[in-house]
């Protein structure tokens, strides 16, 4: 297509010099300032490509003169935050729980840090604010499986329950029905006895006898449990796996034996301490 720029006789404006089936187009260029912003953008893009990671290759990309990456920026930011927190974290690591509890500023920091760690690591099972759900204990009440004193909470979080850690809290309730230790009928009788402890059923002499023979060793003769063994209090009307007759029957027939990870393997010492203080302050701490 030949280029033949000519002046349009009607508007006095120049044409682009091209013709399509007799139709010519007037040349209406962009305003100059607009064109210059394009040039400025091109210059910016070149400078950017030289300074920052930009051009992909088969096995990676150009790194740019500034050696900038989002990841290194994040690492720097985290380092900065950690160094700001370090003075508190160091004090928390060095202090005993009693010392932290007597220092309002440090305690505030620890509980806030504990709340944050709780929301990342614990909330999935124990619920927001430690509300708990079936099979996962409520942490705001005063009913503890392994003890609600601060050292006991600390040990539970650090080493966990029924896991591979050698210091883990580890006891096991027998599968009374499934392993044939009791007949289904006997399981039913002891279920009624257990429910009678909180006034939910009428006990039979057979049920009481089986309870004393089979259960009292861990759950105590009065059914109030033993935190040394992680044996729950059966008389307080609070049920981890549900308080219906069916749920209690299943608990005895199959046993439950819930477990929890040893958080000491995943979190650092100061975080575990802050978590402990947070859980202790939720309302159930002794």
């Amino acid at each position, binding site marked *: 297509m030949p280029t033949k720029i000519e002046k349009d006789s009607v508007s006095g404006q120049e044409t682009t010099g091209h013709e399509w089936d007799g139709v010519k187009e007037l040349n209406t260029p962009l305003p100059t300032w607009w064109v210059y912003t394009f040039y400025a953008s091109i210059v910016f893009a070149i400078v950017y490509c030289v300074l920052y990671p930009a051009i992909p290759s088969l096995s990676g990309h150009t790194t740019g003169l500034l050696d900038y990456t989002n990841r290194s920026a994040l690492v720097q930011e985290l380092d900065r935050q950690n160094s700001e927190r370090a003075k508190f974290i160091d004090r928390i690591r060095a202090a005993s729980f009693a010392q932290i509890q007597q220092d309002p500023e440090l305690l505030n920091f620890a509980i806030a840090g504990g709340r944050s760690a709780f929301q990342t690591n614990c909330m999935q099972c124990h619920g927001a604010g430690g*509300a708990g759900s079936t099979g996962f204990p409520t942490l*705001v*009440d*005063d*009913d503890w499986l392994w003890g609600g004193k601060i050292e006991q909470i600390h040990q539970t979080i650090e080493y966990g329950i029924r896991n591979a850690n050698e210091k883990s809290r580890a006891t096991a309730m027998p599968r009374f029905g499934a392993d044939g230790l009791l007949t289904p009928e006997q399981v039913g009788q002891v279920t009624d006895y257990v429910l009678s402890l909180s006034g939910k059923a009428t006990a039979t002499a057979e049920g009481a006898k089986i309870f004393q023979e089979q259960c009292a060793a861990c759950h105590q003769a009065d059914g109030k449990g033993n935190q040394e063994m992680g044996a729950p209090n059966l008389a307080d009307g609070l049920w981890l796996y549900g308080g219906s007759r069916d749920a209690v029957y299943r608990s005895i027939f199959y046993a439950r034996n819930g477990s929890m990870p040893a958080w000491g393997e995943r979190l650092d010492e100061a975080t575990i301490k802050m978590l402990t203080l947070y859980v202790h302050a939720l309302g159930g701490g002794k």
Partner: protein
Amino acid sequence: MDGSSPSLYATRIKVYPRAVSGKWRRVKWSALVLLLGIYYLVPWLRWNRGPGAPDQAILIDLDGRRGWFFDIVLWPQEVYFVTGFLVLGAVGLFLATSLFGRVWCGFACPQTVWTDLFMLVERLIEGDRNERMRLDQGPFTMSKAVRKTAKHAAWIAIAAATGGAWVFYYVDAPSTVRAIFQGEASLEVYFFIGLLTATTYTLAGWAREQVCTYMCPWPRFQAAMLDEQSVIVTYQKWRGEPRGKHKAGTTWDGHGDCVDCRLCVNVCPTGIDIRDGQQIECIGCGLCVDACNETMGKVGRPADLIRWDTLARQQSREQGKPLAAWTPVRARTVLYAALLAVVAAAMAIAFFLRSDTDLAVQRDRSPNFVRLSNGDIRNAYTVKISNKQQHERHFTVELRDLAGATLTFTNTTPPLAIHPDIVATFRVLVTLPAAAAPSGSQPIEFVVRDGTGRETATHSSVFIGPSR
């Protein structure tokens, strides 16, 4: 555009105000010294508030979220006092305008004050009106370059001082001034000094009367506040016309008092001719009054051909009627004064009733309630108590409308010691025996008492029990 369509913009004709002396010029200088003095010196006032609190008398601490005004400390939730002052300022301007015309514009507006200061500097360096005009029209010489550079340098120095003083209202002045010069002040400090330096230099050095004529909304609606009883700058047309040159010693018959010396135009900071009557550009500074009196004295005619007067009195003067007394008490001034009084009273009442303690209570919603091993029902609350006084206080918290409830604080026991000027957060557990627990939600009220047993704050919340 082909150039044939008319331009929508008027080209600015540069104003070269001439120096003038006289009564109103003296009033303006006094206002300038007073207002700039207040502006630059107030941040340096010290006020001892004891340890831990800033010793700057007036400080708006944005980081610490406190406004310090001598012994008054405002918290962010009391920002309505600022709103109140803005309303007072606006209504005060309405009242002043309906009484005295644009006295704010002419004497007190920062644009006027700083422009006046910049013009003074300009006059000291480049000379008066005629000299400046000659300098601008003349060829570019070494002396011209030196004078222009000196002028702009002086302007920028004043502008920087202005920006600096502004920053000092928000940060501690003595330590920041050191940090600024050592290059250690925060980025915000440098940014705002830079910003206000730029605006001061541009608005007072270059834009000047264009700010008043085109940018400022205030002149647009001031016209609605003026009436024929407002005291404004007037040219007594009936006395001045017909104007014209007058030869000394000849008769004044058939000749108005105005000798058309154009002094009133030359001194005008907005470059208008007051003899054209009321104009939107007139800022009511009264410099033309001084200029005209200078001339009237020279030609031996009575003073005040241009004078402060009301339009009503001008009319009676013109018609030779007995001069009516000025009536400052009119419907609109009474209305503005009443508004002013109401807003001021509301603010005063709000100020004296403002509490020195705030209480906020947030109930835990996960879980809504918890059942304890003995059957009791417990709700947990986060309680925040603000101690707005400047000394440590001890508080107790109690519950209203919930018989038999026990309050337990996590990790502390009442009385709760709260440091001065902070918000302290506590976790409170409220426990009720199962039999007393409500089915569903029951409204309750938290009450905070200070060390003297005085009830200082309340906050309503609810207690939730299992539905039965």
